[in-house]
């Protein structure tokens, strides 16, 4: 039981840090509230969809930004989608970086867009890593016979 307690404390600390450091915002908690015994994996399912979606979008963005003549409207459209989905799961830092990228697109600033795109990717992989850790901790708690604490 001591082990479960340790895991639970780790989970709580880690969750708090994600919110404190701005990786996640209130929308993530909204999703957690929608999870219950009838839908115990809701958050995991939505986030998994987000990961799948994001890989495609990042790939499309990468290709679009490498064109001889960059179609900024197209780039903006992809960024808009990415901003939307990251906002829907509460991935705040990704969303904010997308907002910056959209400004560069509006100015048709290629150098700025390329730099900002790197930052978008960086934030995405950071939050992906964090979320995977969070889910792993949850699994460990459950496997050890404990319940996952609800973070208010």
């Amino acid at each position: 039981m001591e082990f479960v307690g340790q895991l639970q404390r780790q989970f709580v600390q880690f969750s708090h840090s994600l919110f404190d450091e701005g990786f996640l915002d209130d929308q993530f908690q909204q999703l957690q509230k929608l999870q219950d015994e009838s839908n115990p994996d809701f958050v995991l399912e939505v986030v998994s969809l987000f990961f799948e979606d994001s890989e495609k979008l990042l790939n499309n963005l990468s290709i679009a930004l490498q064109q001889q003549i960059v179609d900024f409207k197209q780039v903006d459209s992809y960024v808009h989608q990415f901003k939307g989905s990251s906002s829907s799961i509460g991935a705040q830092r990704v969303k904010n970086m997308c907002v910056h990228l959209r400004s560069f697109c509006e100015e048709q600033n290629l150098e700025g867009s390329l730099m900002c795109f790197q930052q978008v990717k960086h934030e995405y992989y950071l939050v992906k890593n964090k979320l995977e850790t969070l889910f792993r901790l949850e699994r460990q708690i459950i496997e050890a016979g404990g319940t996952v604490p609800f973070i208010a």
Partner: protein
Amino acid sequence: MAQEFHVLAVDDSFVDRKVIERLLKVSSCKVTAVESAGRALQYLGLDEERSPVEFDELKVNMIITDYSMPEMTGYDLLKRIKGSKKLREIPVVIMSSEDIQPRVNRCLEEGAEEYLVKPVKLSDVVRLRDFILRQKAHPQTEHNSMKRKSRDESPNAGCSASTSCDHLRPSIPKRRKIVQL
């Protein structure tokens, strides 16, 4: 037997579709989620190829649609629905991640029930559902009280007999913005 509150949700984003579906189910709504305005029109029997299923069986109590979608926007879908005798009474709610006043105005003027800024919250869905259910039960009185709650509403809104209340569609746009606390 109580009729289920059936919502048709339209959104091209996988993630958003999953979230809105869950929000609606948690609010005790029956949900049909589609990925485009085209699919929505097909479902509603408004496209060229008529659906073989009788429309009444699919009774839709509310349509909630994303604004920005490829091929056909939520706004265009709204216009098609409001332009259809069969469907114009169905409340249509627009969702958008962009809080652009002219866009909000345009949607409301075209007959949208509300314009919700994404991400949509559970409280939005519950509020909408309750409002529409009350409207169905008491067409005149509820419409008035809802209008009084609207931010920009003029005080003398008095709707007599008509349920569609087209004459009350505001030239003062009604605007509902969900503030994130």
